[in-house]
Each structure stands twice: as C-alpha cells, then as structure tokens.
C-alpha cells in the first residue's frame, strides 16, 4: 500500500468520484469552466457530470455543439487567455476529430511561443472496450497522446484516482488528459470528501510481490490484480504496478520493481503493436537488462479493430486468465 491509496472511509462509485472531482475543481477555481457535448443539460451520456449545471449555472457548465475541433480550440484559446478550461471529449474514439487541435495547438503552443503561453487545460475522456459498442466506441488510444510532447496523460482506474486525477489536472498549468475507463463506471472505492491531488508522474504499487512485476494501466489493473490472485494460488508472488501517469511515466518505480522480481509483464487494453506497453517493455528491457531472467512479456489486444459480437470482444479484450497464462510462460511454470 502506498501514499496514493485512500484511507478507510467513504465509498463512492467511479462515476460519482468523477462528478465530485469536477465539482470541487469548479468550486475552488472561479476561472474554471466545463464544456463538452451534452455535459450540461444531460450531465453527459455517462451521467458523470450530473448536477453540475444546477450548481454552477450555464456560464460555467456548457453544452457545446458536436464539434470536437471547436471544443479543443475553445480550450486552447480560453486557456491561453486566463481561464482554466475543463473540456470533455465523450468517447476517446472521437479524438481523431481533433488531433490537430490536440497535437499541433494545445500541446505545442507553449513551446512554439518560447514559453510565453500557458495552457492550463484539462481534457476528460472515456476509453475502453467490453460493452459491445464496437469499433468506434471502444478504443484505447492513449499511445497517440503519450507520443506527443507537451501533454500529460493520466489513466485512473479507481474511484480514488479518478477524482484525484481530475483535481490534479485542473490545478496543473499544463494540458492534462484524464483518460477514464468506461468499464469501471460502477466500481466503488474509498474517496475522501475533501479535494486532493495525485503526485504527477508517480506510479502506484497496487500489490507487492517477489517473482514477477506486472505493469498494467487503466481497466487492466484490475485484471492484473485478479491474475495476481490466481498466480498466488499457484505459489507465484506477483507485484502489480499501475503507472497511473503514462506521461510522464514513472520509470523508476517500474525498474526498481523489476530489479527485485527479475521478471516483467506489461498489460494494456490497446492493441499491442505500438501501444504504450511497447515503450514500457522497451524501457524495462533496456534499464533492467542485467536483472531480467526472461523476456518481458506483453498482453494486449490483437491487431484488429474492436469487434462487436460479444463472443469476439471477449476474446479480444485481455483478461486475468490471459495475463496469468503469460505470466506462467515467462516464469516457465506454464
């Protein structure tokens, strides 16, 4: 258990932790506003912003047209001129509509201007598969964002972390993407009532272990933890690390763990080729070279769009069983 864990106390589901994070961010900063498609009247299609319009009014909680380029542009322009925009891109799959604004404007403005602009922008978006929403509403595209200098990227997978991530992002003077997991919306967890932040770029050790380090982010952290349970039953002690921040990445915590366990497995929901797991695996293989007993394994989605049919989607999305199987492979116990 590490610092970022919540103390015993009030339970809140993931969705309500999101709401509370945004609410407190708006409460503490009069220059903060929230905008996005159906975030106000409807409180988002996911219901994650319900009540915010009533509390903060239509000047601060704003329904936009279906215009993702416009939404990120709004955040860039408002952020560069003194406000603290919190904008929502409903499904992460829709960032394709505004990658220019994200990558060429939001991420680069400060640098291109020689440090003379500040972009205190928070972007909230929902990623992940498992709900039979097919190829255009199920993607995990964090790799694009993490490859983009100027952005910070956090992928909270617990109620505690999602609230903390939002408040951290809202207080940050840099653009932060909070990539949320739609598969976790009903997940309860301990969430303190007061506002709190997460240390930027700090991984969380979700479970300690000796013989294998599993690095998993987003919803996969829960599958990795389940896999660790399965492995424990087989006498294998796995350490489970949630990087939480993919940009900047906490290489140190990961390498320290692998130096201890001598084995590593990287897990994510995105397709394997070119996913963030490639970067993590490459770093481990490079920096823990002398410690590794076996090649770094990777469990991720195969190289196809997300299929609709549940029977295919279940095969597609990584799960505890596949993680455990790969772990056995690495440890030579399979």
């Amino acid at each position, binding site marked *: 258990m590490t610092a970022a864990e919540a103390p015993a106390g009030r339970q809140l589901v993931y969705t309500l932790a999101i709401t509370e994070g945004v609410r407190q961010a708006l409460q503490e900063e009069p220059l903060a506003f929230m905008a996005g*498609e*159906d975030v106000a*009247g*409807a409180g988002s*299609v996911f219901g994650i912003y319900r009540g915010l319009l009533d509390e903060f009014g239509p000047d601060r909680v704003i*329904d*936009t*047209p*279906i*215009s*993702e*380029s*416009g939404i990120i542009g709004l955040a860039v322009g408002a952020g560069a001129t003194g406000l603290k925009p919190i904008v929502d891109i409903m499904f992460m*799959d*829709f960032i*394709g*509509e505004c990658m220019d604004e994200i990558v060429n404007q939001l991420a680069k403005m400060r640098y291109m201007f020689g440090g003379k602009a500040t972009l205190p922008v928070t972007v909230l978006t929902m990623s992940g598969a498992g*709900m*039979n*929403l*097919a*190829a*255009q*509403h199920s993607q995990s595209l964090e790799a694009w964002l993490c490859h983009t200098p100027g952005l910070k990227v956090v992928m909270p997978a617990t109620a505690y972390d999602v609230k903390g991530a939002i408040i951290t992002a809202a207080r940050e003077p840099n653009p932060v993407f909070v990539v949320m997991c739609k598969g976790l919306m009903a997940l309860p967890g301990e969430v303190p009532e007061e506002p709190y932040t997460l240390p930027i770029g700090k991984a969380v050790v979700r479970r300690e272990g000796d013989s294998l380090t599993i690095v998993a982010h987003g919803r996969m952290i829960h599958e990795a933890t389940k896999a660790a349970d399965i492995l424990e039953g087989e006498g294998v002690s796995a350490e489970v690390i949630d990087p939480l921040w993919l940009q900047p990445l906490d290489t140190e915590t990961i390498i320290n763990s692998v130096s201890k366990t001598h084995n590593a497995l990287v897990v994510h929901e995105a397709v394997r080729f070119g996913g963030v797991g490639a970067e993590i695996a490459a770093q481990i293989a490079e920096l823990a070279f002398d410690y590794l007993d076996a090649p770094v394994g990777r469990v991720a989605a*195969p*190289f*196809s*769009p997300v*299929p*609709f*049919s*549940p*029977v*295919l989607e*279940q*095969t*597609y999305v990584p799960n505890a069983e596949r993680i455990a199987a790969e772990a056995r492979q690495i440890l030579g116990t399979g």
Partner: protein
Amino acid sequence: MANSSQAMEPSEEVLKDLHFRMVRIRHFEEEAGKLMEQGKSPGALHLYIGEEAVASGVMVHLSDQDQITSTHRGHGHLVAKGGEFKKMYAELYGRETGYNKGRGGSMHISNVDAGMLGANGIVAAGPPIAVGAAFSNKYLARIEGRDSMNVAVPFFGDGATNEGAFHEAANMAAIWKLPVVFICENNGFGEFTRQEDHQAISDIADRAAGYGMPGVICDGMDAVAVWEAAGEAIERARSGGGPTLVECKTYRYVDHVGLRGIGLNYRTDEELEEWKKRDPIEQHEKRLVEMGVMTEDEIQAVHDAVMADITESIEFAENSPLPDPADLLNDVYTPTAAS
C-alpha cells in the same frame, strides 16, 4: 429542376411503396428496441421511430446502384434500402449470419452490395464518404460513356451539421457538381441538446447557399413531401445538376438510445404528443384510404406480413451461429497475393 416536374405526383405504386417501407422500419425498430431492453441483443441501439418518412421518401428514388451513407441511427436507412430482416437482426445479435458477420452490430450495419455504405458511430462521418461515392459515380459514368449518374445520398442529423466533416464534404460536392443529395434529418436534437442550443439558425437549409447549392426544406413527417423534395434533388444530381441540401423536419419519438420516449427531462411529453399527431405512418395510411389506394384491411395485411417476417427473422437470428473466435483477425485486411 425543369424535367422533374412530372415526378411530383406519386403513383399508387409509389404510395404503397412508401407505406411498406415505413411500416417495415417501424416494426423492425420497435421489436429491436424490445430485444435490447430485454437484454437479448447486446450493445446500444439508436432507434429511428418517428422519422420513417425520411428514409422511405428518399429511398424510393434509389436503386441498388445508388449509395447511401448512414448514421448511428441507421437501421431505418438500411430497412428502407431493402435490408433483409434476417441479416439485420442477426447483425444486432452479433451472429455470423448478420450483414456484417457480427463484426459491426447496430452502429455499423451495412450492405455494400445494395449501396448501403454503413451506419456509422462517428457523427458526420457519412457525408465525406458519400462525396467519395459520388465521385466514383461521376467518374464511372464518364468512362462508361453514360449520361445518367448513380447518386450518393448521405443521411445525417441536425447535430451533425456542426461537424467540420459535413462542411468539407458539402463544399467539395458543390465545386465538382457531384451527384450527391445531402439529407439532413432535423429531429431538433443532437442527443439531449436542442437545436437552438447547438446552432443559431433554425433552418439548416440556410447553410446550402454558403456552398453554392440549393437548399430545400420539407416536412419530414410526410413521406410524400420527402419523396417530392428528394426526388427533385436526386433527379438533378443524376443528370449532372450537382448537389442539393434537403432538410427534413422530423422528430424522434424515442430516447437517443433505446425505446423510452416519455418522461425525458430534456423535452416534454406534450412536445412529443404534438409531433405524434402527425405520425408519418398514420398520416400516410389515412391518405391511402382516403385516396382509395388501399383498404384498411389491406393495410392491416401489410402490418401482419411485416410482423410475421420479423418473428421469423428474430428466430433466425437467435438460432444463428456465433462468430468463431478463431476468426477474430480475419477481415482486418483484404488478402493480397503479394504479402
């Protein structure tokens, strides 16, 4: 615009055809909605109930060689373009026998063979694709030496007209005088946001002038009105007169997703009731009877036949094989000799 005037009077055959397509959509959707609410079909369904006149009024003018692009709310378009219920329900069920072999589901349901280039999960993704199809149509007519062109028809909502993709597509179609008819299904909402909150105009047809194409408004609750407006535009497109933006004012009876239509907090039940008074099917059936085109019994027989088809098709879907997980990676790429 000249030579389309004789098309203004729908024949009995057309009137029956409009009716048949609308009835097929309505029942297909109601049953699909129930299946979803009963947890029998997976995923989310965006239903077309209330808007049947639009798809039907347009589609009567199109052959399998004409293409359409659709939206997240795409079943109605596919049904109107002749979609077979068996393959449609099988798709909603994620079965191998579905139109997309279960890979696409509701949001991507398609039938390329009949020119239905897919429902789409991305708002406004259709218009640029339709422009591409229209480009093909013009290109092929040229090299094949035909005068008349196939037409591409993108359907899209009021909300979609605020996406950049719509704008770019409309402009391209206009410059190149492509055979495209842009059909805007203005149901007054993008999800839960009213039109007045997502654009400062009330007639989307007003956008047409900015591209240099005609803009037309029609009653999207009246299949004949849609048929007339779309017919004129399609005829013009076919014969090289370029694109038109046709705005159909309509209303969605149900919620953005699923069947529930009343008790929604973003609109009043009264508003819904007002629109329902002009129900496209009831209105049209009244007309059919009044004009003596069909008797009430004949109308009932259409409903019964459609329902029978649905019952059989759902059974087919439920008994159809699931995709084989071993085939997961098939169909990502077209096989090439070279690789």
